[in-house]
């Protein structure tokens, strides 16, 4: 994507992603956490679009925003509530943990950037045909395993629900 002002777009998406991720980690109200998670997932879908992966961006919106976020809201409906009736989340914020995570992020960034190859020319956007060629070609085993994984997950969810009912 070589639109004028693309840097502004990716900068806005990055800032939105970071702020919403921080909100997911620190807010106490469960619904605000779910809304922040939704903003984070939409921002990351925008980043996928910016980096030339439109199918992945669409999958992110459909699977995460449309599926996982609904699951999160459903789970919020059954969790503990505060005396005023709003669902709350317990946290134990620790400055040492925050410092360790910041050091980890800085160290991993340094390690990745130290051996980073020189920036090459931006390639074109990969289309669904390239994705299909990859999934039906060298990654056909991955695709079959994904189908099996989804089936196992579905059976597991049904078994958990049935076990609870008994």
């Amino acid at each position, binding site marked *: 994507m070589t639109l004028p002002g693309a840097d502004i777009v990716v900068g806005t998406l990055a800032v939105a992603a970071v702020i919403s991720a921080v909100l997911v980690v620190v807010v106490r109200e469960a619904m605000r956490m779910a809304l922040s998670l939704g903003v984070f997932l939409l921002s990351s879908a925008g980043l*996928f679009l910016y980096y030339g992966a439109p199918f992945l961006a669409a999958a992110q919106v459909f699977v995460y925003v449309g599926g996982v976020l609904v699951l999160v809201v459903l789970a919020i409906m059954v969790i503990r509530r505060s005396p005023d009736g709003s669902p709350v989340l317990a946290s134990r914020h620790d400055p040492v943990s925050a410092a360790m995570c910041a050091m980890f992020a800085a160290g991993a960034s340094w390690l990745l950037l130290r051996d980073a190859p020189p920036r090459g020319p931006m390639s074109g956007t990969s289309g669904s045909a390239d994705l299909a060629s990859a999934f039906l070609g060298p990654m056909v085993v991955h695709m079959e395993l994904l189908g099996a994984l989804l089936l196992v997950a579905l059976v597991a969810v049904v078994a958990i629900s049935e076990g609870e009912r008994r």
Partner: protein
Amino acid sequence: MSVPVVLCMSLFGIGLYGLLSRRDVIAVLASVEIMLVSANVLLIALARTGSGASVADLGRVEAVGVTIVVIAAAEAAVGMALLIAAVRRSGRQTVDEFRQVRG
């Protein structure tokens, strides 16, 4: 190159902090989702901005990204089902209360 690396590692660090500091299972799962998505964004961004990546390579990397999305969705579905079952059965919803598992 440096912007996506720093961005994604920052997001991963934020998710890691949420994993360590949050007590509720639902918030821990949300933090894990942040870590998975940040790794996925980094994968796509590195393939896009790395040297000499062709469109076919991008398609292959995007297929790996879709694989990660599907695995994350399956993990979230099973995790939420376990959480709802645990809360309904015993009223427990924080990771501190899950000190033992039963086979």
